[in-house]
């Protein structure tokens, strides 16, 4: 794979250290020396693109290698904007990451925002061993919805693959939203403006996995109503709230052997509600990463 960027993190003198870093236009990595308190051992990488977004036809690929026992965070400073497409050209981003034994990689970006007519395809492949740790947040908003653009792009495709040693598939997921399907994207999304996915994998994520499963169940249990009984009752009480869709829908599932992974899927009416959820759920990663993501 021709790479536009490459970062290698290895243990040097007992600390996670960037031993190789390279990026070329339009991609740029910023690696601040001090993000969290000095006692925590984690490298924070900010990925930027010149022009503040991805232009039609851009094809950006990068590689990450996280050595045994290292901790790395890959994030952004603002949402990834995908500008209007010129002709049928598709913008592409590809990430290939290797995560060593006892290492942590957290991919915690801001959402992707596809402008009207944009075409965007993203593919992330994570190669792990059985005790690697991985957090993936992958999310998209309906577009510049304050300007009236709601699910108005031409194509969005996001692929996430987690492969165990020997290319054994643990988690394979592709979401495709394409104009010109039988049902329009907006129709498939109904009133929801954000679709998000959070993947938590590995032994160090156990407590977060348990917490998020409990929290999601609690949030949703309050939202779900049996229509024949309670709904009728609420109509009589003239409470419109109970006739409306929940503004935040989420569900959590375990995957992989021995339930080693948990995936949470979210559909929400506002971007803020998803930021709030992510911040709350990932807050307990602070000791591992130095700073809590989405703060």
């Amino acid at each position, binding site marked *: 794979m021709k790479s536009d960027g490459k970062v290698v993190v290895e243990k040097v003198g007992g600390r996670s250290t960037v031993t190789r870093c390279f990026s070329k236009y339009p991609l740029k990595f910023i690696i601040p020396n001090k993000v969290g308190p000095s006692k925590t051992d984690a490298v924070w990488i900010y990925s930027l693109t010149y022009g503040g977004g991805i232009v039609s036809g851009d094809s950006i690929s990068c590689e990450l290698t996280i050595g045994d026992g290292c901790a790395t965070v890959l994030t952004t400073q603002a949402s990834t904007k995908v500008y209007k497409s010129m002709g049928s050209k598709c913008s592409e981003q590809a990430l290939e990451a290797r995560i060593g034994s006892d290492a942590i990689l957290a991919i915690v970006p801001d959402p992707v925002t596809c402008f009207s007519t944009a075409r965007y395809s993203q593919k992330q492949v994570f190669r792990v061993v059985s005790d690697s740790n991985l957090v993936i947040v992958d999310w998209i908003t309906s577009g510049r919805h304050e300007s009236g653009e709601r699910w108005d792009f031409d194509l969005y495709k996001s*692929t996430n693959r987690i492969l165990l040693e020997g290319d054994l*598939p643990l988690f394979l997921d592709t979401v495709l939203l394409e104009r010109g399907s039988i049902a329009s994207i907006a129709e498939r999304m109904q009133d929801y403006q954000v679709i998000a996915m959070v993947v938590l994998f590995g032994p160090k994520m156990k407590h977060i996995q348990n917490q998020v499963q409990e929290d999601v169940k609690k949030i949703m249990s309050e939202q*779900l109503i049996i229509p024949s009984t309670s709904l009728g009752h609420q109509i009589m009480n003239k409470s419109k709230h109970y*006739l409306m*869709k929940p503004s935040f829908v989420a*569900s959590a*599932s375990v*995957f992989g052997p021995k339930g080693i992974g948990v995936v949470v899927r979210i559909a929400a009416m506002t971007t803020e509600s998803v930021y709030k959820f992510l911040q709350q759920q990932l807050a307990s990663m602070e000791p591992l990463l130095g700073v809590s993501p989405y703060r």
Partner: protein
Amino acid sequence: MKIEPALLSLKRKSDEPGGSSPVPNKKPNSVEDGEEDLIPLHSLQITIPSSTALALTQPHHLMNTFFPPMEDGMEAHIEVEKPTPTDSHLQWSQWQLIDSILPTGGFAHSFGLEAAIQARIISGPEDLQTFVIHVLENTGSLLLPFVFSATISPDLETWQKLDRTLDAMLTNEVGRKASIAQGSALMRVAAAVFSETPSLKSMRDTSVGSGVVSFHHAPIFGLTCGLLGLDSRTSQRAYLFITMRDVISAATRLNLVGPMGAAVLQHQIVVLAEAILTKWMDRTVEEACQTTPLLDTVQGCHAYLFSRLFCS
């Protein structure tokens, strides 16, 4: 030999006009007499081609035998129109495979409909058609590649690989468990029912308890279709059909629509269902994807329902 009684009766009728004239030295009612008189007709039988003689075991052919001018034409005509045993047998198998009476447990699943109602994503019968179309499109994009691949190469190795891939791809636990429940049931039923394809049973016996496969539904459906001899387009259409059948059936039991309304809806959706088939059929597993992530999120909520009729 079997035609003798008929010949006998025919002989007697034709004999009647001249039978009244007494013949000396012959006892009219004796058995011997009858046998002697039949000799000319026996000689007639000898002229019948051997292929026709075999066909004579059936009564309607017997009649043709006695109208020699029609005989050859009839014989040729029958040969052309009669379906081959494999074709007709395939159709019976095909119908049985998609029949709701086949105990594969499809009716225990609502494909997220029950959760969607309780989450108020669906607030009335008018939302049902949209929901069914979304389910069909997601089935088309995510599962038809597995049905297709298993149908065109219905062997143990392909099936096991497809099963493992699908297990990693069905990341929603509710949907994954539903797929395993329906697939295991279909494999058990198909291995017992379609005994003329013993490889179904041998593949099942090899895999049960081995831990190698999870028995997901779509690859087993494709495998069964492939082994029965269905073409891949038919098997993919059949998979959309049974999905539509089960969602609409669930809608009637959730009181979203009456049985008559459900039947009308099922027929109305056909045009769109065929368009979905055309769009998503014959794709490789590498192309499999989700096209309605909202549906997947909502279906995952099924586990949180306090009271529920369905397993998924």
